[in-house]
């Protein structure tokens, strides 16, 4: 099942959009019987019913607090709208993950603003950093605020509802000409973290930059992501959640489902449809139509993910 309800802004974009949606506010994830499903926020009520005994969590990404350029002069405002939506979900999710680029320039005031808004969801938030979160002179704000109990640049794992969650960092020590980077130390830790774990344990891996190669010409991929995925071979259910590219994109490969979340700040173009991956300016009246809500459903055995886009407006 697949349904697309985009405003048709451009032919080429529509073509590429076969399996992707535009920037939105957040994804509601629910795990029922060990299989993660993601649902749009508008479907939250139904989701809560369907997922009754399972684990439900949210993903938001790329809030870029501090961004004030034409693509969205008020990124804090749209983050607030996203949190407002989350607060209308009738059944409280267990927690939220944020897949990075909390801030735009790593200013203390940006992190303060983000925390002030995100805390209104009254949920535990598990963060991983984006490259925009390590821009302060001493590179200490992210670690101080979000890195407690983490290793290296901020990686960690935890268990919830029978699912093993792994937060990875692929935005530091990037090499010239390369993509995202996990590095030897983190890969070693990952291998050890997974060793001896029952292969029937559902695993959710989240990191900022896509772990799979989406579009290397724009740096959308992770140099040593394949090594991380090697360690996940044999697990029955692996879900990889990323951000960074400000649009929903999905891929299923064997036991692994890849999904990138929308931004709460601004959309970015589909791969190769613009001169650069920079913020995409749409007409003011259409901003919320590209910041619309998308819901994603997948079930074990389904070959394709089902995507339902619902714009915030229009």
């Amino acid at each position, binding site marked *: 099942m697949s349904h697309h309800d985009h405003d048709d802004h451009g032919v080429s974009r529509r073509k590429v959009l076969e399996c992707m949606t535009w920037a939105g506010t957040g994804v509601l994830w629910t795990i029922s019987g060990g299989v993660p499903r993601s649902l749009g926020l508008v479907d939250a009520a139904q989701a809560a019913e369907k997922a009754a005994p399972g684990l439900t969590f949210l993903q938001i990404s790329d809030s870029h607090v501090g961004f004030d350029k034409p693509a969205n002069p008020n990124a804090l405002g749209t983050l607030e709208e996203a949190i407002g939506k989350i607060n209308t979900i009738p059944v409280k999710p267990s927690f939220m993950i944020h897949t990075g680029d909390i801030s735009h320039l790593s200013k203390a005031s940006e992190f303060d603003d983000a925390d002030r808004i995100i805390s209104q969801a009254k949920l535990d938030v598990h963060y991983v950093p984006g490259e925009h979160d390590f821009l302060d002179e001493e590179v200490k704000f992210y670690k101080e605020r979000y890195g407690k109990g983490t290793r290296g640049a901020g990686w960690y794992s935890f268990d919830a509802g029978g699912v093993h969650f792994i937060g990875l960092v692929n935005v530091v020590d990037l090499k*010239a000409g390369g*993509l995202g980077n996990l590095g030897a130390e983190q890969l070693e830790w990952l291998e050890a973290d997974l060793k001896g774990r029952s292969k029937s344990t559902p695993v959710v891996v989240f990191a900022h930059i896509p772990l799979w190669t989406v579009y290397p*010409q724009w740096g959308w991929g992770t140099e040593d992501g394949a090594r991380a995925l090697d360690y996940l071979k044999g697990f029955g259910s692996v879900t990889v959640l990323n951000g960074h590219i400000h649009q929903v994109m999905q891929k299923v490969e064997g036991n692994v489902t890849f999904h990138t979340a929308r931004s709460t700040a601004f959309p970015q173009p589909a791969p190769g449809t613009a001169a*650069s991956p*920079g913020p995409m300016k749409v007409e003011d009246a259409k901003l919320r139509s590209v910041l619309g809500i998308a819901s994603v459903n997948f079930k074990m055995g389904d070959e394709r993910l089902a995507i339902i886009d619902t714009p915030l407006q229009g």
Partner: protein
Amino acid sequence: MMRRDFMNRGAGIAAATLLVLSFAGSAQAETFAVSIDNFTFAPVEIKAKVGDTVTWTNHDDIPHTIVSAGKFRSKTLDTDNSFSFTFTAAGDYKYFCSLHPHMTGLIKVE
């Protein structure tokens, strides 16, 4: 007498100034501009001489950095921010943006 001395002195200063200017000119210390637009350094390669300066200016709505491993590293350049580096030694300076490593450039200094 007094007036003539003054005039001579004035001419001397002018000549000295010219001399300095012409020396500076013969050293050909130039400033090159590299523009960052659409996640691209332009021009992507520059041939410079020792003593020349390169100034990078970010015109994107996304911050970038200029990093040449072990040689120089800019702060994060927000929109319209610039970074300058004066090259004091010959060599090939490969550089990239540490946030978007697919962005690369080269300064060849002779």
